[in-house]
């Protein structure tokens, strides 16, 4: 497993570039090659930080030492001192205490690295997703032979010990779920891989499935063995044509290879996987709706309990895990639970795949340890804001919430976020700058919930409709203060009375909006103006 020893950040904004930061980056790469460190050190650039006096700035983790200003001719000395010999190059260090304060968010984190740490995505983009041989030559398929030598309960104990939590949004402990399915009475059990990834802004599961479909098969085999199931389903959303094709071919190849089907590798264990394609319904990501859809029905959720762990597909005990959750299983088995616990935070070990989107300079996918902050995400991976200032982040669909700028230094893990009243969600980080209006954005979110509500239970069906109406009124300048009160009541009603997660969390954006952006909303109502200049106010 490739793990970076150090991480180097170089400021490369306009101001740094005018002082030769590009030559510095070039020189660092040359020096790393010279000392044969290129494979151990992660180098990336960040936007301008601190004052121009100290630029170009170079920050080296895990020691979190800031150097600056650094010129191309200093680089060889810096790399040989800090990265090769392992001592701080004091002569180049930023010493001005005021300067240090200005870049405090970068130098406070000592001992850990906000560096990319690819566990689930490790072989995505590396292996040929159409070739099972390529998968096997890249350490793939090594976890299943370990598992088959163990007792099923031992496998579950490893997962429990690793502390892995579900990556679909709720963060439920995976080992506990596996145990519940294993302990459920019945001979016939199912494993379901939830690849109906429809949260707006989330596409991590698509990339995993397209890049390494074989790891999904291996993870499902392990889950099947541990839980006592012999049949699995992959429910993949209808829009993901490419992922569907890749996984279908991968299953075919695995069957030909003899690692899927009856009596796998003559161990007496049998497992078969079916692929089920969705037909365009967001709600089918909810587990009971997903099961109804596999059974060929309307994808309407039912009330829980009983949970799918005892009454799932066709009434049988069923394990439902997200793609990213399953993607963590083979590395945990292969490297051990202690290794997994060494990444991330105590309550949320491991990494998280995020999609970073919106008004940042670089959008895309990244996998980082749990517990890094939004400020680090925007600064290091988003390469800074595109123009405007950071206003809020939206963490994806119904399971996420709106994170205002004041919470950008909260570590991103399930518990830290829950403690401040927001949710991590499925891993989308939609970064919005101050050119966006909160009323307009919440209106768009409420429209999404209104369209995607299945209409089965009344609080959600009527609630999403009415909240959208009120949000539209406010954004068009017809809002009243009474409507704000009504909005809060509707939100609470949906939260407490709805049948499934969609309705229960549909009011979260409204809650966050009223909590953190009340003044902006009231400006729409009382003053009749949209401070961001987005809403078409009719007055």
């Amino acid at each position, binding site marked *: 497993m490739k793990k970076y020893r150090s991480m180097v950040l170089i400021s490369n904004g306009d101001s740094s570039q005018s002082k030769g930061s590009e030559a510095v980056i070039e020189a660092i790469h040359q020096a790393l090659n010279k000392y044969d460190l290129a494979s151990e050190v992660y180098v990336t650039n960040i936007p301008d930080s601190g004052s121009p006096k100290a630029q170009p700035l170079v920050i080296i983790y895990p020691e979190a030492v800031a150097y600056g200003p650094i010129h191309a001719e200093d680089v060889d000395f810096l790399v040989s001192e800090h990265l090769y010999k392992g001592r701080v190059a004091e002569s180049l260090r930023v010493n001005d205490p005021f300067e240090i304060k200005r870049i405090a968010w970068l130098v406070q984190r000592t001992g850990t690295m906000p560096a990319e740490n690819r566990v689930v995505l490790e072989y995505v983009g590396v292996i040929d997703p159409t070739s099972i041989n390529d998968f096997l030559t890249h350490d793939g398929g090594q976890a299943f032979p370990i598992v088959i030598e163990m007792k099923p309960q031992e496998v579950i104990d490893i997962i429990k010990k690793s502390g892995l939590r579900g990556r679909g949004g709720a963060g439920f402990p995976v080992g506990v779920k596996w145990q519940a399915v294993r302990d459920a009475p019945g001979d016939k059990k199912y494993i379901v891989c939830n690849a109906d990834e429809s949260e707006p802004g*989330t596409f991590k599961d698509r990339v995993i499935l397209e890049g390494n479909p074989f790891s999904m098969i291996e993870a499902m085999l392990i889950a099947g063995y541990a839980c006592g199931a012999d049949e699995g389903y992959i429910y993949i959303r209808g829009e993901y044509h490419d992922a569907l094709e890749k996984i279908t071919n991968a299953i075919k190849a695995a069957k030909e290879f003899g690692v899927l089907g009856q009596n796998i590798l003559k161990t007496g264990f049998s497992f078969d996987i079916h692929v089920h394609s969705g037909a365009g319904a967001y709600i089918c990501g909810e587990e009971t709706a997903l099961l109804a859809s596999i*059974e060929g029905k309307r994808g309407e959720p039912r009330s829980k309990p009983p949970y799918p762990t005892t009454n799932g597909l066709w009434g049988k005990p069923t394990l439902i895990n997200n793609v990213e959750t399953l993607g963590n299983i083979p590395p945990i088995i292969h490297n051990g639970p202690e290794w997994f616990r060494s990444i991330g935070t105590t309550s949320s070990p491991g990494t998280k795949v995020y999609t970073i*989107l919106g008004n940042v300079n670089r959008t895309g996918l990244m996998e980082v340890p749990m517990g890094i902050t939004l400020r680090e995400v925007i600064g290091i991976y988003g390469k800074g804001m595109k123009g405007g200032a950071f206003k809020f982040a939206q963490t994806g669909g119904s399971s996420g919430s709106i994170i205002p700028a004041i919470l950008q230094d909260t570590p991103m893990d399930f518990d830290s976020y829950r403690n401040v009243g927001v949710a991590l969600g499925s891993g*989308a980080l939609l970064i919005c700058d101050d050119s966006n209006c909160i009323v307009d954005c919440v209106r*768009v979110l409420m429209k999404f919930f209104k369209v995607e509500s299945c209409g089965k239970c009344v609080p959600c069906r009527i609630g999403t409709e009415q909240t959208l109406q009120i949000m539209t009124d406010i954004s068009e300048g017809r809002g009243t203060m009474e409507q704000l009160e009504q909005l809060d009541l509707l939100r609470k009603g949906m939260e407490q009375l709805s049948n499934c997660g969609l309705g229960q969390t549909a009011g979260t954006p409204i809650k966050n909006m009223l909590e953190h952006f009340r003044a902006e909303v009231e400006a729409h109502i009382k003053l009749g103006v949209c401070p961001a200049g987005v809403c078409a106010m009719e007055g």
Partner: protein
Amino acid sequence: MENAASQQKNNYDHPDAINRVRDIVFKTGCSKEDLIAVLKNVADCFGYISTNAIHEISRQTSISTSDIFSVATFYRMLPTTQYGRHVIEFCESLPCHVVGGRELFRALTEQLGIQPGETTLDGRFTLLTTSCLGVCEVGPVLSIDDNIHGNLTAENLPEVLAKYK
């Protein structure tokens, strides 16, 4: 998928159409579990699911027509009314909205002269809105006949639309 745009959709007026529906049912499966896949394949083949097709599926699978209709109307990708030659699905989720989706939508409705749910008079385009298409990194995004087009602006939109006759 690439040549889906150029492919002429099968027509229900064809005398053989009902036989084709029957073939699809046999190839896909007759159990309730296969219903969504059957309907999807019929919709892919003909562009939508007609009342006659629902009756034929019902005859072959012994699932009641009301059950089939109720499933078909639940899912976005199982249309029961006829669309234009090309179907535009515009993503109106927040990630596309904040990176220029707002402006793109205005340009799109102006250039086509239709609102969501409508078809142009010449039957060339039907405009639908959809939730996230899962390619948010290149937003704003729209899909035409399952082909995804990203990083769109009001300026490069006509060029994309011109590819679909």
